[in-house]
């Protein structure tokens, strides 16, 4: 068994060494398509970041009546966190903090500042700002639960119902972007697979006569297929090594430019934190498509 494997490995390596043109062409095609697949993953990362940024901007605010004490609001906050684990962030804003924020925001608007002086006292209310994963149903569920709970008598208003249409619209856009991303990614990966498959099939077609001779002398199917499959693995590993190295270099070089367009998104950091996913995608794609194409390509001539 081991001798047979050693022989198959030797045939594969000898053939590669004697067909450098085919080796380079196959690796180049595999590399180009692998870069495309990696590009899709980078794009997915960018879209994910953008969507998270937008989702973090969507929030609902629960305003409390003027006489409600801070400890009661904090108790409501803790209860909400307990009941709704999907909440990403919940922040208590005291009326003093709200006033400070208001003044800071409108310091250049003299009309508003004068109006505030005329009122004489702080008209703003203490509140809880709630951020979930952006699903309008979750916001609606939180709002409804608060309205019918024991805390409802402490609550002045919840602004969900004013923001409902906007939240729905943003959520629908995000969902459509996600679906578009999945479909376009799938189509591109499928195209990449077909391109690699056609290239490797062509290289095997080149060996059609050879396969026929191997059959005549009584070689077993695996003795014939083996070298092609190993060549597929070698194409995949070489293309992966180059692609992984290039992905690191390109993400490092494009880091400043992408940060200019998307502040806070470090593309090189994204590559480093997801390096194992890149390894899985690139190696899986390269070796998987290489081996599968070899198996299908050879099978055609073994079945004749």
């Amino acid at each position, binding site marked *: 068994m081991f001798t047979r494997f050693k*022989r198959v490995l030797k045939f594969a390596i*000898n053939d590669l060494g*004697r*067909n450098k043109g085919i080796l380079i062409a196959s690796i180049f095609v595999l590399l180009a398509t692998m870069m495309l697949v990696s590009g899709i993953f980078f794009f997915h990362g960018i879209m994910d970041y953008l969507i998270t940024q937008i989702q973090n901007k969507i929030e609902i605010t629960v305003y409390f009546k003027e006489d409600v004490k801070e400890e009661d609001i904090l108790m409501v906050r803790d209860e909400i966190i307990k009941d709704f684990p999907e909440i990403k962030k919940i922040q208590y804003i005291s009326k003093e903090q709200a006033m400070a924020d208001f003044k800071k925001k409108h310091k250049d608007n003299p009309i508003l500042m004068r109006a505030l002086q005329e009122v004489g006292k702080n008209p703003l209310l203490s509140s809880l700002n709630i951020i979930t994963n952006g699903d309008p149903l979750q916001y609606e569920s939180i709002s409804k639960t608060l309205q019918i709970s024991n805390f409802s008598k402490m609550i002045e208003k919840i602004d969900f119902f004013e923001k409902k249409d906007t939240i729905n619209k943003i959520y629908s856009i995000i969902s459509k972007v996600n679906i578009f991303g999945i479909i376009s990614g799938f189509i591109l990966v499928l195209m990449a697979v077909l391109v690699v498959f056609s290239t490797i099939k062509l290289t095997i077609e080149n060996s059609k*006569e*050879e396969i026929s001779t*191997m059959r*005549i*002398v*009584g070689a077993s199917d695996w003795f014939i297929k083996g070298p092609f499959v190993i060549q597929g693995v070698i194409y995949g590993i070489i293309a992966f090594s180059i692609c992984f190295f290039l992905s690191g270099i390109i993400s490092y070089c494009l880091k400043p430019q992408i940060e200019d367009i998307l502040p806070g998104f470090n593309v090189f950091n994204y590559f480093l934190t997801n390096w194992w996913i890149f390894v899985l995608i690139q190696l899986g794609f390269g070796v998987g498509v290489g081996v599968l194409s070899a198996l299908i390509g050879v099978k055609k001539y073994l079945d004749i």
Partner: protein
Amino acid sequence: MIKFVKVTKIYSPNTVVLKDVSFEIKKGEFVSIVGKSGAGKTTLVNLILGLEMPTEGEIYFDGLNLNEVDNFKIQEIRRRVGTIYQDYKLLPKKTVYENVAYVMEVEGRETEEIKREVPKILEVIGLKNKINNFPSELSGGEKQRLAIARALVNSPEVIIADEPTGNLDPYNSYEVVSLLKKLNESGKTVVLATHDREIINKLGKRVITIEEGKIVRDEAEGRFII
């Protein structure tokens, strides 16, 4: 050794290559199969090797019905047969040494034995000095000698030669046929498919004549009559 029982091979309704062909080749026989180009000789050879399956009828190799055996058994049968073709069917990306070694590797022979036997047989057929050459660097006669070395290296029980002299000059053709005769004298079964009148008439062995896919003559000491 080889038996055809009412074998028919049809590629498409309009292409009937063999029709109702029956014959038997005994162990140690030398049988020539003759016929014009397209008479069905190569199809017959492919059927013996299990490279094609009959549309109807049965083919037996050493008692085994090829219609009923699995792929592994067919491969085993092919390893018991040495084949020589007009177009040599060499492995173009392997050297002379590797072409011969390949069939021994397929057979599962030990590496040491391969290293010992391949140079020996290459010396016998006069290709020792071309051991590292590729088939594209050999002349027609050398290619055919290499194909013969490959066919013989595993000491097969049966030799099948499909138009082995088709691409050779008279001298090389005579050499090949003489070698086939010697192999037959040493006890091997030889099946020679050819349309070379001169070779058949000189052999004085059994001749099966095929015309339009049918056996029209089967004579113990036949001549080429078409």
